[in-house]
Each structure stands twice: as structure tokens, then as C-alpha cells.
């Protein structure tokens, strides 16, 4: 029960203040990767100002991480926190979908 409460708490606090931990996997300087980095940065700056950590990983440099995180399609962004974990692939150009993935969509 306590756990469930915890989960609910975290959901409640979604917009409140818990920092977003994001991990973006890219492949070098491919066009998709560059666009993805630009797009996610602008989205985060607009919606999550000052409450996100964005880690950008080039799997060309660290291929062993690709296996650990089960990367297939790139660019891939994993929302580690807050719960639940979500994965987003693509160049992050579809802002609505990115927001949905981040749990920030307003359904309107």
C-alpha cells in the first residue's frame, strides 16, 4: 500500500518540482542526431525550465552503453525519472508526442 501511495505521490508531484532525468542517445553528428539535440533542448527549456538533467550519449563513442540500454533506433531518449520510464525515438520534431512521452501533454 505504501508503495502505491508513493507512486501516486510521485504522479501528483509531476508538475510540482521533481527533476526530470533524461538520457539522449545519438549517433555522432548525423542530421537526425543534431536535430534531436536541438529539439529536445528547446522543448525542455520551454516546458521544464531548470528542473531537468539532460545527458547526451554518443553511442559511437560508447557502444557498450547501447546494449545496456537496449538501443536499436536512434535518436533515442529515455526518461529515467520521474516514473514511469518512457522511451522516445526520432528527431523530437513532433513536440506533442514528446510532451506526451514526458507526461506533460495536456490532452486538449
Amino acid at each position, binding site marked *: 500500500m505504501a508503495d502505491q501511495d508513493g507512486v501516486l505521490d510521485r504522479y501528483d508531484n509531476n508538475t510540482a518540482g521533481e527533476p526530470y532525468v533524461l538520457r539522449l542517445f545519438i549517433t555522432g553528428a548525423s542530421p537526425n542526431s543534431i536535430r534531436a539535440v536541438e529539439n529536445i533542448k528547446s522543448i525542455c527549456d520551454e516546458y521544464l525550465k531548470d528542473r531537468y538533467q539532460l545527458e547526451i550519449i554518443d553511442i559511437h563513442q560508447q557502444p557498450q552503453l547501447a546494449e545496456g540500454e537496449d538501443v536499436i533506433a536512434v535518436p533515442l531518449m529515455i526518461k529515467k525519472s520521474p516514473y514511469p520510464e*518512457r522511451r522516445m525515438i526520432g528527431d523530437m520534431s513532433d513536440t506533442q508526442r514528446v510532451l506526451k512521452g514526458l507526461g506533460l501533454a495536456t490532452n486538449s
Partner: protein
Amino acid sequence: MSKTQKKSSPILYGTLPKVLTGIVGLDEITEGGLPQGRPTLICGEAGCGKTLMSLEFIVRGAVQYNEPGVFVAFEEKSDELAMNVASLGFDLKKLQDQKKLKIDHVHIDRSEIEETGEYDLEGLFIRLGYAIDSIGAKRVVLDTLENLFSGLNNQAVLRMELRRLFGWLKEKGVTAIITGERGEGNSLTRQGLEEYVSDCVILLDNRVVNQITTRRLRVIKYRGTVHGTNEYPFLIDEDGISVLPVTSLKMANKVSTERISTGVKGLDDMLGGKGLYRGGSVLVSGTAGTGKTSLAASFANETCNRKEKCVYFAMEESPSQIIRNMRSIGIDLQKHIDKELLIFNASRPNLYGLEMHLVAMHKCIRKYKPSVVIIDPITNFINIGSVSDVKNMLVRMIDFLQEEGISVMFTALSLNTIVNEQTDEGVSSLVDAWILVRDIEFNGERNRGLYVMKSRGMKHSNQVREFVITNTGLTLVDVYLGPDGILTGSAREQQMLVEKTGEAIHSSAVNRKDREILRKRKVLEAKIASLHSEFESVEEELNKVYLEEELKKQILDRNREEVTRLRRGETAETTKKHPKNDGKANR
């Protein structure tokens, strides 16, 4: 395995290098394995052995050919895979520790993924590239690549990336296997992977006919090389996959002129006095209880006595049952089993399909390399296939055995004693020799008769011989021709007794006559002797008369001379002047 290697290596064509899979039989069908450095597609329905075949390719490569491999699993987790194949003796964990194998589990779940724009599969390429480079892999398996389609939406990207993937794999120079689920209708795979992989496509199939499942394999396409085109049954058992490439009914087998005994002296005599040809096939057919198994067992016994190996496929009785039963006729099979000369392989025909039986037998024969194989009986195969199927299977069996120079004895139960021209399995035309055992019902008892229907390449007896099973084995009684034809069983014994009596009487009669002749001869001889002496006495008598006559004549002559002289007045002194007369008188 090494035999397979040697066999197929000279067939290699310079243009297309191949990689041995190490899977029994597959290398023969593909004449050397899969195309080196190119992707091969293995497709088939669920549960037909795609994953196992591809995994065996990787494991055998790592273990036998020192070619490390990467297995990318889209379906099963590494642990699950290891567990699934542990029963086949593949220790994936150990191979992974030795850096000969790398299993990469790729998990894609559509529900967890949000597509937010353009993407590609570079991640997969990098992972794969990293895995290949980390162990120096030569072999790669992607099982099942099509799972990508269920995880990702953008078909255009996927197709483009797959095309790129296959190009990239070729560039990497790894021999790859891609597995794919069989699609609806005629398509080989659901997502049309066959259009990307164009070098080699193998289709696996799992068919149920008459409630019996048989797995089959077919090489649909193999660019730049010849390959077997038929469907080949394959077997998955504790040693992995074995495929049976029996197609080569080339009829170019070597034949032996060596003869081997059947273990029954009388039967050897019927077969030209020397028995069967080594490497030949013989069918023993007959009605129930005519001693087919006994004949087979004595053949096995004889083989083992020669210190040769024999594999006995028992399809009806359990090994211990056969051993017990044969002991009652003085054949001890247990001692041969203890010496590992005799190998029993008992299975019910319904255990699996015909093809599987063939594969299983094939495997067993390959393993033990016997010089004689016995299949007892082949009759029940008819339960699991049509006549032509059974015949087909047995043709292939005989073909394989001949190629290996192994003699084989089949037994078959003929259900109908009237139709003895054909066995139910229709193999009578295939075998080299056909021995028929049958009941001869006569005079209120049943006896066994045996005859040789045919025996290729040797002079054989055309006689029906009585076949007797005794405590000490099998014997054939000599043909017994009574006044009313062939006699068997107690009728034969009786007739023999009658004749024996007759003979005794006859011989005593002969003796009596002999004695009479002797007596007569004696009598005659005595008569001859008496006549002889009679003749002598007559002769003497005659001689006496003659002498007397002579004397008489002399005396008369003298007297006359005397008288004459006296008349002339001569004295006795003058007579002395005529000595001639004196001499005459003296005689």
C-alpha cells in the same frame, strides 16, 4: 561429422566459398554449407526449429570450426535461450565466458516507445558492430528480425534500414542467418525479408499427417551453387538437428562378392551354399508365428559371433522380450549386448513419422557403424504411411545401407497367405533376396516351410524346406519326398519310419537270397568236382585199354614172327639180327 566435411569439400566450387554449418546432413544438402560472408534466410512457421537451427549454427561454429558467433535474440532472453538449449548439450554460458559466443537480447515494446520524428536503426548497427568486434565474430544470427516490425511503426525506415543492414553484414564479411516467420499464403516471410536476402533461402516446415508430425527442410534458393532441391526430413533430438539427405538414388554403389552366413546352415546351403552377399538386403516374410524373428535373431547372433556389429531395430517386441524368447531356442543375445556387438533400438512405429524413423535409424547406424542391420518387422510402418510412402522410405533405407556396405534383413508379416507374390510394403522387388516362411497345414498339424523366392546373383534352391525350431536353434530338414509328394512334420517322421522298416525287411530278404546262391554254388562246385574225378577215372580206364591193346598187339606180333621164323626153320639166334623188332616189342 568429420566424414561429412571430407566428403563435401571436393564439391566446392571455386567461385562461392562456403561455411560448414556443422549440422548433420545440412552441409551435404547445400554441398558445403552456407555462403560465406553472406546472409542466409531461414524461414518457417512457429515451432519448426528456426531458432534452434540458427543457434546450432553459431554453437557448432564456435566449438568445431573456431568461428566465434553473435546471436542477436529479438524474441528470447539470453537466459531463456541458454536454458532451452542446455538439453542439447550446448553450454552457452561457458561459450560466452570463453568469448566464443555473444548473445545480445534486443527488446522492443511498442507500448514503451513514442515515435517523435525521423529515426534510423543505427543503434542496432552499432550494437552489432560492437558485438562482432569484441569477440572477432565470423557468424551472426538475427532471430527474429521481423520483431522490429511489430515494435516500430515506420515501415519505410525499417525497410530501408534492413536493406542497409544486409549490405553492411556483407561488408563486415560475416556469415549471417536471419530467421523469419512464415507469412500468409505463399509468401515466405511476413515482411518479405526474402527480397533482401537473395543468396540463400532455407524453408523449414512442420507438417502433421495422420496425427504424426514431421519436420522438413528445403533449400528454396541458393545462388551460385548446386544444392539438393527436395524436402528433407529432419530430426531434433538430444544431439541437435540432423537432416537426412537421402536423395542420391544414383545406383552407383559398390558391391561386394563376399558372402556371409545367415546363421542357419540349411539356409546357407539353399543360397548357393554360402549364404547372402555382404551389403545385400534380404526380406523374410511370412504369416504370424512362422519364425521370422527367430531367423532374424539367428542372423544377428551369427554376425556377432563373427565379432561384427549388428543393430537390431525392434518395432514390435521389447529387447528384453526378444532376448528371453531367443534364449528358449538356444540363442544367447545378452552376451553380445554385453560386448556391445549387438545394439537394440526399440521403438513403436507410431512414435513418429516415417521420415523420422528413417532419420533416427540413419543416425543410429551412423553412430554405431554396424555391418548388419535388422528391422523387425517393417509391417507396422503401414500404420503411419501409405504403401508408396513406406516403399519410398525403405528404398532410401536400402540405398543408404548399400552405400555403406551394410547388410540388412527386414522381416514382414504377410497377412494373407494366398497372396504371396507381394508383401504389403511392396519392397519385395527392391530386396536382393526374399525368403518366405509359411505354414504348411497338413494332416491335422501345422508345420513351417521355408523357401527362397528370389536371390539375386546366386544359384539358389527351389525347394520348399521344412523349417524346424529346436532348443538349440534353427534347422532346415532335408527335402523329404514321399510317394504322395513332399511330407512334413509327423507325416514325414512316420513315412521315414515306414521306409526304414521296409528297408530292414528288404535287406534281410537280400541276405537270404545271397546265402542260397552260396549254397547252390557249393553244391554245383561239389558236382563239378565229382564229375571231374569221374572223367579222370574214365580216362584212366581208356588209357588202360589202349595199353592192353598195344601189349596184346606186340605179343601177337612177336608170336607171329616166332611162328614165321619157326616155319622158315630159323633158330632163335637169327632173331637177334633184327633189333628193330626187339625195340618195338619193348615199348
